[in-house]
């Protein structure tokens, strides 16, 4: 039995989890990121340059996303799948042009992070009437599901 165990240990089986563990997002000039900590939480920015292993220089630009040019710790940003073609230390004008060309702001809304952020913003902007409407709609949906389920059970 020891033999079998040794043989099993030698075979490297890539579990579905392991197979997905390839780096696809990189800290690089032009990478679009979301800030995940601090006063600019959930805002988009672009990496303009890398300062060192822990920090990067990012810019929103401010007029598009509300993030001004500053140095931020890599721990405070989440890389997205989106990337724009800009040079190092790109000007605000060229970043804006690149954002428009690749339609980044709309593409981001399709990203998982973008979906989460827009859902969060929509939910926090609900007033009491909206919450009531939501509750009513969910209740109606529940009733319809139960009714259909009862029919299928018969």
């Amino acid at each position, binding site marked *: 039995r020891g033999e079998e165990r040794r043989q099993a240990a030698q075979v490297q089986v890539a579990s579905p989890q392991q197979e997905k563990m390839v780096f696809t997002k990189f*800290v690089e000039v032009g990478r679009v990121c979301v800030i995940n900590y601090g006063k600019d939480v959930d805002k988009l920015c672009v990496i303009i340059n890398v300062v060192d292993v822990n920090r990067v220089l990012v810019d929103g630009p401010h007029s598009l996303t509300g993030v001004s040019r500053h140095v931020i710790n890599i721990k405070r940003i989440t890389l997205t799948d989106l990337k724009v073609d800009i040079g190092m230390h790109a000007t605000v004008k060229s970043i804006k042009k690149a954002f428009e060309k690749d339609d980044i702001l709309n593409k981001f809304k399709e990203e998982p992070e973008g979906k989460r952020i827009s859902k969060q913003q929509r939910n926090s902007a609900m007033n009491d009437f909206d919450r009531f409407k939501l509750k009513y709609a969910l209740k109606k949906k529940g009733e319809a599901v139960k009714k259909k389920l009862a029919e299928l059970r018969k």
Partner: protein
Amino acid sequence: PQHDHKKMKKTTGEILSVHQIYEKNPFLVKNYAITLRYNSRSGTHNMTKEYRDTTLCGAVDQMYAEMAGLHRARQDSIQIISTAVLKASECSRPSVMQFHDSKIRFPIAHRVPRASHKRFEKKFLPARPTTFVG
């Protein structure tokens, strides 16, 4: 603060005015070389260190932190002799030179997850966190 290097202290001089000098372009990443002199427990030594930062003050802060960490040198035993902004070709420290790449690119290899606000930090989590972020 030491006064060996410049031989000037409060009693030998008179402060006429103090102005803050601001970084000319704090949004440009630069390579700073700081030459310093510090007292260790057994003697005094010179050093030249290189840092990547956007401002000189930032580089000097890095220097003080590094000296404290690596050499246990406190701020008052360090004297800055000179500072300079280096071109990429003039740098010699590999820790700075590794960032001299116009196509620099690296993944986040290991990210310890953190809540987006202290308010949301939990003592117990439903599942073990993963450090792989892609």
